[in-house]
């Protein structure tokens, strides 16, 4: 439980800095710091049990179907890393408080940092591979945010993007690998996976899985050849670099290797790949670290090289190698974080990070100098410092391995070479900055605020103490960690002094060689200048731009901007998918007995089809095809009547009429003459498509109709009266059983109306001054007879609509139809008497009407909560009043009222707004 809390805390805590972001910088930092401290305390609370050898676990099922659980474990390895993440994280937070300038958004910074911290904790404590991957990607994202923190700098953006691209891609590979492993093991829970280790290694898919996982790990921890994103990530604020690239982010890959070592490790493939990649990375990093002039660049490459070192150790995979790896993880984190902070300090105080500009700072900042010397000495592997010990062990392993048979000797040699280089750049880091001759600097350098040095001080102290008394300091930590990697309780022994032996000789060689290389570095630089190594960034950029260009071309070809083409493609696709299915049906005709045709149905069908064809034939004469459409609509409603659906018939009728009105309105703004645009070929094509689609749909319908079916409706039929208090089952379904649909539906209507309202805003439509034959419009706007009758009809229409509304619950009718009837009556007023007339008499705000409608409906739904019922459960009872007699009252009627109002509001909003355009704007004549 505490475990889960520990992981969850940073995520929750990430909000804290944002909440107080408008307070002082101090508050924000405290908020962030507090979060880290609490998590650290939680960790501390858990530590003893872990050291005692037990593994606290937490399990909550999330998606059991996918074998995905929220499962955490805190074994030795996790503890080691968690301690690093939280400890150094805390130091970073303190450091960042002084590092960030006033106009940096500290709230955002700390939020991202905590987010990242949480994700890292998640990775190291995840007990489920998929969960692990989940956090893995989270780190990619949060690190993206952190690296791109100064998003106003283009290089920051580019660096962030590159980091995200590489690590993200790696993450995908990792996911694939994890899925493979999970499939083999039959579970994603770590214990199960560990248990299935041998099976996995024996499995035929082992190699692919291994490769995929390794890609994931290598991209994350910047191993060759994926190392190039790391230097560019240096565009991040230094605290971020210090955190991400010393202790956490890049260590995630290492952690993964360590975590999966029991499962994947120990095989020949593992050894070859991991070791060699590690070796290559180490040399590569060391070499370029020496060449870099940028302080942080130097550190970045040295990080790469150290990661390579650790990777290599993991690759070797012997007991000692693993110990060395874990130990070095610890050490590297400490001194590298320190170094980054120092780089930050220097940058902060001098305004420059360029080794060629810097120099002679020893007077200005002696304290910092000492810290720098200690930490970089640790990096170089000077005796009595932690770096020395791990490097010593590393040498031992490198020289003890015999994995390349007769050629095994080249490993120690190269290793020593790498060590020399790292010594060289360590010296360079210290000497070029602090000794050397002073130069002109942007700022007058002086010691940073004390609290900025304290974190470094702590780290440096750790370097020394660990270096002097490793067993006391870290063995406690390392034992369980080693156990969880190497299995079977491994004993840890780290000695200061092994006596005079080859490793010691190698160290000495490394130190001396390093010094020589440093002294001769100018030659090296010149030598290096001869061939210009293309910056990886350009390669990356090139790839990216090529991809984008490819996509552009593709879009060009697909997105022609021709709706016709899209539509055609769409329909053809439908056919492609549906036709095979239809072919699978053995017989189109089902077993259901069929009705026989009668005269009306026949003539109705004939009329319907004829009208449909008419609409097609006359589609160039708009009004005609519109009339055809309205015949179709009428006939459809007759069909509904014929097949016992009066509600549908009525709805269809009103909707049909209203939409016809709408279209006639729109017709006025359409160009009057339509050139014959489509070529014969296109027409033929379209006819073909249309024919096929029609045929397919028709046959599906037939197949459907002729098959017997069972429906869930018996429930509705049975419960309509007892449950919904209405005899019109359709209406009861709408307002009660599936009331939520209806609520959504009227909301859609309201939204559509609102959207239309906006669409019509400040639209200046074209308006023809006369009809197609150039005849001027008739003078009389509002024919007298029409006016009179419309005014007579209005009350009657309202009465009818009320009638339909009130009976809806028990008989065909209901709010929707009633609403449209009312709307239609109002539209009649508009048509007969004009906008202004209606405005001055019935001045209602249709928007609010619709809104009120939706509100009422929703409130009715919510109301049922008050009675402890579910949302939109309708309540009804029968009253018996003296004169009135027995009658029913139901909340459903309220809901229906909501529908009624919404429909009126929305419809009038659409039509009236539309109609007003002509009165609102001065006509804009055709052609001008």
């Amino acid at each position, binding site marked *: 439980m505490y475990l889960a809390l520990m992981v969850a805390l940073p995520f929750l805590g990430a909000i804290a800095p944002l909440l107080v972001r408008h307070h002082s910088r101090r508050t924000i930092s405290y908020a962030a710091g507090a979060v880290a401290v609490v998590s650290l305390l939680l960790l501390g609370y858990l530590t003893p049990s872990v050291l005692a050898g037990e593994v606290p676990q937490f399990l909550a099922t999330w998606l059991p179907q996918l074998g995905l659980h929220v499962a955490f474990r805190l074994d030795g390895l996790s503890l080691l890393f968690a301690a690093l993440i939280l400890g150094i994280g805390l130091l970073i937070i303190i450091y960042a408080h002084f590092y960030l300038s006033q106009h940096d958004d500290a709230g955002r910074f700390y939020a991202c940092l905590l987010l990242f911290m949480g994700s890292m904790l998640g990775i190291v404590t995840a007990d489920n591979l998929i969960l692990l991957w989940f956090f893995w990607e989270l780190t990619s994202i949060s690190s993206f945010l952190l690296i791109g923190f100064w998003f106003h700098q283009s290089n920051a953006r580019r660096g962030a993007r590159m980091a995200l691209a590489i690590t993200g891609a790696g993450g995908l590979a990792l996911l694939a690998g994890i899925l493979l492993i999970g499939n083999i093991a039959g579970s994603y829970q770590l214990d199960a996976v560990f248990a299935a280790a041998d099976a996995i290694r024996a499995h035929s898919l082992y190699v692919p899985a291994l490769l995929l996982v390794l890609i994931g790990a290598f991209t994350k921890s910047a191993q060759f050849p994926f190392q190039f994103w790391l230097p560019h990530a240096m565009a991040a604020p230094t605290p971020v670099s210090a955190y991400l690239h010393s202790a956490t982010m890049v260590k995630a890959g290492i952690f993964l290797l360590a975590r999966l070592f029991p499962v994947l490790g120990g095989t020949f493939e593992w050894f070859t790949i991991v070791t060699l990649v590690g070796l290559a990375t180490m040399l590569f990093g060391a070499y370029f670290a020496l060449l870099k002039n940028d302080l942080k660049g130097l550190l970045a490459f040295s990080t790469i090289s150290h990661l390579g070192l650790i990777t290599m150790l993991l690759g070797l995979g012997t007991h000692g190698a693993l110990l060395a790896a874990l130990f070095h993880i610890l050490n590297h984190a400490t001194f590298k974080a320190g170094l980054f902070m120092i780089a930050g300090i220097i940058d902060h105080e001098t305004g420059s990070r360029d080794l060629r500009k810097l120099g002679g700072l020893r007077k200005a900042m002696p304290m910092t100098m000492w810290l720098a010397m200690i930490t970089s000495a640790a990096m170089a592997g000077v005796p009595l410092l932690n770096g020395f010990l791990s490097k010593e062990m590393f040498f031992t392993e490198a020289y003890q391995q015999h994995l390349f048979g007769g050629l095994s000797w080249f490993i120690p040699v190269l290793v020593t070479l790498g060590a020399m280089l790292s010594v060289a750049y360590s010296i360079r880091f210290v000497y070029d900055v602090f000794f050397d001759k002073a130069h002109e600097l942007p700022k007058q350098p002086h010691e940073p605020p004390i609290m900025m040095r304290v974190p470094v001080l702590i780290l440096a102290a750790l370097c020394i103490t660990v270096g002097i008394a490793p067993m006391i300091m870290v063995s406690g930590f390392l034992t369980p960690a080693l156990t969880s990697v190497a299995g079977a309780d491994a004993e840890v022994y780290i000695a200061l002094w092994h006596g005079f032996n080859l490793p010691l000789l190698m160290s000495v060689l490394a130190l001396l060689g390093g010094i020589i290389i440093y002294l001769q570095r100018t030659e090296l630089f010149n030598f290096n200048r001869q061939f210009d190594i293309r910056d990886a960034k350009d390669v990356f950029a090139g790839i990216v731009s090529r991809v984008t260009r490819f996509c552009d071309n593709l879009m060009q070809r697909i997105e022609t901007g021709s709706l016709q083409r899209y539509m055609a493609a769409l329909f053809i696709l439908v056919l492609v998918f549906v036709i095979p299915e239809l072919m699978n049906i053995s017989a189109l005709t089902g077993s259901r007995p069929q009705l026989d045709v009668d005269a009306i149905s026949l003539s109705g069908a004939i009329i319907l089809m004829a009208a449909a064809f008419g609409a097609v034939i006359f589609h160039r004469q708009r009004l005609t095809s519109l009339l055809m459409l309205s015949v179709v609509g009428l006939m459809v409603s007759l069909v509904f009547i014929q097949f016992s659906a009066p509600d549908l018939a009525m709805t269809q009728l009103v909707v049909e009429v209203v939409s016809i009105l709408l279209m006639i309105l729109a017709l006025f703004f359409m160009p009057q003459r339509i050139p014959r645009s489509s070529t014969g070929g296109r027409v033929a094509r379209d006819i073909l498509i249309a024919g096929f689609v029609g045929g397919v749909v028709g046959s599906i319908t037939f197949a459907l109709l002729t098959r017997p079916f069972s429906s869930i409706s018996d429930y509705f039929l049975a419960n309509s009266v007892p449950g919904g208090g209405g005899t019109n089952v359709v209406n009861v379904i709408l307002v009660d059983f599936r009331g939520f649909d209806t609520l959504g539906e009227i909301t859609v209507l309201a939204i559509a109306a609102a959207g239309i309202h906006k669409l019509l805003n400040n639209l200046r439509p074209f308006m023809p001054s006369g009809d197609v034959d150039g005849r001027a419009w008739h003078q009389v706007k509002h024919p*007298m*007879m029409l*006016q*009179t*009758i419309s*005014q*007579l009809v*209005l*009350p*009657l229409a*309202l*009465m*009818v609509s*009320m*009638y339909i509304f*009130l009976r809806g619950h028990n008989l065909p009718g209901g709010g929707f139809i009633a609403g449209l009837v009312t709307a239609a009556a109002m539209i009649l*007023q508009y048509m007969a008497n004009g906008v202004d007339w*209606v405005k001055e*008499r*019935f001045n209602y705000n249709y928007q609010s009407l619709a809104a009120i409608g939706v509100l009422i409906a929703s409130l009715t739904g919510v109301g049922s909560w008050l009675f402890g019922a579910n949302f939109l459960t309708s309540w009804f009872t029968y009253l018996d009043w003296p*004169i*009135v*007699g*027995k*009658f029913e009252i139901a909340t459903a009627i309220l809901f229906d009222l909501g529908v009624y109002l919404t429909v009126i509001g929305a419809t009038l909003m659409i039509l009236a707004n539309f109609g007003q355009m002509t009165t609102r704007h001065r006509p804009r004549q055709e052609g001008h």
Partner: protein
Amino acid sequence: MSKFLPAPRLSLFLLGFWLLIQNNITPGLIVVGSILAIAIPLFTSRGSDFHVRVARPWKAVEYCFVVLLDIVKSNFSIAAIILSPRRSIYPAWVEYPLAIEGELPITILASTISLTPGTISIEFSHDGRTLLIHSLNVKDAEAMIATIQHRYENRLKVIFQC
């Protein structure tokens, strides 16, 4: 014409209409109906430019029956025209001078004309005092006008007192 009952006759009419549409008479319906019959005019009264003043209700009823009768007659005559093969018809434009005033009476008259023997009212003259009629088959325009006058217009005069 009180504030709450702007048009009592209309309300009464609506109540009747309500019962008619309900196709049933129960106390409950009457209550609901009267509520609506009072409520709806409150809403619509502003929306009618004219006041329906039926001075002689019984005359109105009589008028309805006369019209119905004529409708039936006219139907037969037109049926004859339609069904008779190859009988040439004599359509004509005829002007009809309006004697009555007020939108409603005129509208009613025009409607009646449209519904009854072979005539359809088409246009009002600009001054609105003459009605243009299209007659499907007319020998003697004057006679037709006379019929319309004494059969309908005079009755409407009596009914609406205009």
